[in-house]
């Protein structure tokens, strides 16, 4: 049985797709067969971040409509043979997603995969609802600013009430907080909410803090999930997140400002 993970946030632009790509790659690299699905029908992005945009033939909607088999639509990652990508359709809209269709595709994937990562679109409409409906775990991606926190809070309410687990009266979806684009320096200056501020409002299990980093943008532009950039702190932070999710006890990093010694000041002024 696969574990279905939804990466969601409510608000747009907080790093859902970056996170989906990173954790899917991270899980796959740990040897777990993983599929990552783009639910953002009409605004396909995951394929770009994964660097497989030129290999898209069939998409998620084709599979739902029975126009292609799952095997035809799944794109095998070239860097990791445990990772498969199911891209969204760019020419359709979210109405093409049906609960029955999504359920069928996930059921089929469940037989073969260990983890299924659902990259949710922003908003709380059809696409987002269907991305989270079948989930077992939810990664709530939040930026340390009030609008993002409130939208995440709203999303958590929906997770608790409108999922398959909620409707069947099963154990609730496990919710994890992922605080992204975090800058300890700006927190110190009072320009950004701190981890404690966000936790005070959301009271969720913190899976990791992803620091604001140039490497994320670079990775996106070059189609390489940032987790593969082992030099960058964002890449390391995502590796920590995957490790923690898999039950490893990894201490939190990147929450406090790095103390730079004289050498650091001289040679690593970033």
């Amino acid at each position, binding site marked *: 049985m696969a574990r279905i993970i939804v990466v969601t946030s409510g608000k747009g632009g907080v790093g859902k797709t970056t996170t989906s790509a990173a954790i899917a790659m991270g899980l796959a690299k740990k040897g777990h067969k993983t599929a990552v699905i783009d639910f953002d029908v009409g605004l396909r992005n995951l394929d770009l971040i994964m660097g497989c945009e030129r290999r898209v033939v069939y998409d998620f909607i084709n599979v739902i409509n029975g126009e292609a088999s799952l095997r035809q639509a799944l794109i095998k990652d070239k860097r990791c043979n445990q990772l498969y990508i199911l891209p969204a359709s760019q020419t359709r809209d979210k109405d093409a997603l049906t609960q029955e269709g999504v359920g069928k595709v996930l059921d089929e994937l469940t037989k073969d995969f260990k983890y299924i990562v659902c990259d949710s679109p922003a908003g709380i409409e059809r696409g987002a609802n269907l991305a989270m409906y079948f989930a077992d775990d939810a990664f709530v991606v939040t930026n340390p600013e009030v609008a993002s926190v*409130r*939208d995440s*809070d*709203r999303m*958590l*309410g*929906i997770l608790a*009430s409108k999922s398959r687990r909620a409707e069947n009266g099963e154990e609730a979806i496990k919710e994890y907080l992922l605080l992204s684009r975090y800058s300890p320096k700006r927190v110190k200056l009072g320009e950004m909410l701190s981890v404690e501020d966000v936790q005070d409002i959301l*009271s969720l299990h913190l899976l990791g803090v992803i620091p604001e980093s140039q490497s994320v943008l670079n990775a996106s532009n070059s189609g390489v999930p940032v987790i593969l950039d082992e030099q960058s702190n964002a890449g390391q932070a995502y590796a920590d997140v995957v490790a923690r999710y898999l039950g490893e006890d990894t201490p939190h990093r990147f929450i406090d400002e790095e103390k730079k010694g004289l050498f650091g000041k001289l040679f690593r002024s970033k």
Partner: protein
Amino acid sequence: MSTDTEAPSYPKSVLEFKSTSFSTPVLVLFSTELKQIELQLKEKIAQAPEFFKHSALLIDLQEVNKQDQVIDITDLVNCLYANKLLPIGISGGNDEQNRLALDLHVPIHTIRGVISKKDSLLKNSATENTETSTNKSMMEPVSATVENMFISQPIRSGQRIYAKGDLTILSHVSAGAEIMAEGNIHVYGSLRGRALAGVQGNIKSRIFCSDLQAELISIAGHYKISEELDKAEYRKPTQIYLQDQALIIKNL
């Protein structure tokens, strides 16, 4: 030990009679055509199978009897059982019908209030409050069943909670959430959303919270928004109540 006037202590009573009122669907018949009744009954049940499954049901024969039609009570009751409905009484029946009902262990009721709407041949969705006065002559005070609500999860932005009695929340209430109760409200986490107590007009309702940051607080329609809150009360454990139509916020 209680030292009441009635000195000798009698063995504790193992039962008592209480009065309660509850809602139950009333099946009003307009025809005696059993086949047709069953057909339409099945249609109705199909619309809400869970609601009707093993639902108690009161049979109302007033309309049928007005038209002097003859209906076989035994067949009717068996038809209801077959459809997983549990008749708990008939009303508006004549002597013959009442006798037959009693033979089937179906009690006889008298309904007050008439159900209008005659647009359909069969109307069973009318949920009438049938007061079953069991035994009111008892000296026992009548205990009204208040549906208190208890929630241990956080109430998230956009969620709405309504309690028919008191509402107790162990966790926090987020900004953008709305909690309402006909009785009191207790919030043991931070209260950041809207809290409305006594929404049916109970001016004796109160709100208690351990950290007041609410967007709005209201008791029986008297409200204050967060802008009107005093610094002294903000982020403090407080209770809120009505006194002479004024909303009082007091630190605990």
